[in-house]
């Protein structure tokens, strides 16, 4: 039998380790606290000064209400229909005004929303094949170390530069505009989505790869069937997630001139038409939220562990099932 002395020895060593861990936590917390305290001072963050501006801020925010949707469609602009009424009027003829505005070059909220959605979508679609190629080649399972770092490094370099900087790097191709915004978002997608693809590939099971290899399959077939087949649904899920991110990026690129809702917001604030700005912000909410809702619903259904035996078809069908939206089933 083990004697008490041995047990006590084990207890002492456990307690020592626990003490060391607590000390470490305390040191880390103290360090975070110190950097925050001195950092706020360094960047000139004065809570008192900012608080003094709160009344002005509230006054400013008050100027946003009520939101004015006058620029909702061409019809409401030309007929000077203001406020929320503009939305109702725009839909009153069964969609004719909306369709008319989509085909009109002028800045309307419906067209700006469409442009923003398209910028995010096109950037994602154009970036996807390059993200897939670099992402797969960046995995150590496909490209032997250290050559895979060539591709990983390229993706890191692309990722290090945000889309809003890329659009200025593309100035020789054209000023910040809708086409260069698509390019900038696509470039950003290559870096971000590619990295997610690589990480996903590193975590797959060896078994199916070995099984496919043992059938005498060629190297590309082993990659396709042993590896990519394992990550297929998660690749779709990540791409949908990046679509969400890209929609938001499209708005910020709009502010620097790429069109869409961002452009509308910059224009209206430039003219101190804050009530119209507010309408643009409401549209941003609607666009981003709807993309997020659709994408997160699809992604939730695609996760194989959470929803046993749910294919992509079921996921799309669920999208149109109101019971699921309301959580009734």
């Amino acid at each position, binding site marked *: 039998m083990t004697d008490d002395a041995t047990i006590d020895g084990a207890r002492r060593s456990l307690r020592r380790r626990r003490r060391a861990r607590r000390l470490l936590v305390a040191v880390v917390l103290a360090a975070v606290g110190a950097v925050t305290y001195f950092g706020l001072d360094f960047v000139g963050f004065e809570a008192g000064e900012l608080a003094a501006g709160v009344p002005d801020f509230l006054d400013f925010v008050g100027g946003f209400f009520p939101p004015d949707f006058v620029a909702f469609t061409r019809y409401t602009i030309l007929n000077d229909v203001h406020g929320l009424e503009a939305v109702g009027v725009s839909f009153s003829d069964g969609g004719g005004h909306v369709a008319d505005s989509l085909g009109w070059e002028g800045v309307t909220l419906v067209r700006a929303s469409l442009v923003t959605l398209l910028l995010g979508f096109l950037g994602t679609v154009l970036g996807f094949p390059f993200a897939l190629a670099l992402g797969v080649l960046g995995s150590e399972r496909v490209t032997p170390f250290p050559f895979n770092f060539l591709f990983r490094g390229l993706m890191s370099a692309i990722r290090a530069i945000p889309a809003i900087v890329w659009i200025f790097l593309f100035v020789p191709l054209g000023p910040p505009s809708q086409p260069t915004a698509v390019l900038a978002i696509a470039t950003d997608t290559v870096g971000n989505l590619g990295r997610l693809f690589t990480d996903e590939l590193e975590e797959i099971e060896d078994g199916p790869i070995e*099984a496919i290899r043992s059938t005498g399959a060629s190297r590309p077939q082993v990659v396709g069937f042993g590896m990519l087949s394992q990550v297929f649904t998660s690749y779709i899920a990540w791409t949908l997630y990046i679509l969400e991110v890209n929609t938001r990026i499209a708005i910020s690129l709009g502010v620097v001139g790429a069109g869409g809702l961002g452009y509308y917001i910059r224009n209206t604030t430039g003219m101190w038409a804050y009530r119209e700005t507010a309408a643009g912000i409401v549209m941003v909410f609607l666009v981003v939220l709807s993309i997020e809702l659709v994408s997160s619903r699809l992604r939730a259904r695609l996760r194989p562990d959470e929803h046993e035996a749910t294919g992509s078809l079921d996921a799309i069908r669920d999208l149109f099932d109101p019971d699921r939206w309301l959580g009734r089933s």
Partner: protein
Amino acid sequence: MSAVSLDDVRKVYGSDTVALDGVSLDVDPGEFVVLLGPSGAGKSTLLRALNGLTAPTSGQIAVHGDPPAEAGSDVGMVFQEHNLVPSMSAVRNAATGALARTSLPRSALGAYPADVERAALSALDTVGLLDAAGQRAGSMSGGQKQRVGVARALVQDPDVLLADEPVASLDPRAAREVMRYLHTAAGERDLTTVVSLHQINIAREFGERFVGLRDGAVVFDGPREDLTMDAVDAIYYGEEGRDDDPDPPVATLGGETA
């Protein structure tokens, strides 16, 4: 000519882990061989070497006279953890057995030739899963998954079928069922089969010839009649037998050795 032959095969992992220590073995065409031996005896290494998944450190391995790497798709393999792609249906998993004879574009599009599709369905029929052909592999039971694993190896249309502890993670009933399908398929298609097993009763039920591995060396090779309890003990406990086990698991409970 033997279907499978090993001549003084050694496999050393790293600098000093000897997995196979001079194994020589000949298997005739159509033979059903069961590999027995404790964990770490070298059974998996032997099967992986026969399949060309690992290369021996020294010695010769031949499958129908060729090195295993060249035999490629002539050797089918069933894995312990079935190794299916969970997101694909049973029939698509089975069809991957035909990748070696399907062009890349066709296989990438999942547009297998009609004969491969027919072979995949017929293999699923052989293992009693024709009705579940469209079911996702991930949603199947352990026994069903392993039967799909057998079907995939059959679609390969191999001459030699290898199985590495194919029923180790199944309950006794599912294990016997999988072994029955595997045994029947091997018989019908006249396959040379090498299976490693841990369950002695299942091994005795299906095996014709038994090869015992211990510490990387062949310590038993004979038909079912010769596989007595003593012979089994010799494979798992060595020459000294079960009674002289210097470290029997039960006796260590009190912290003292027997």
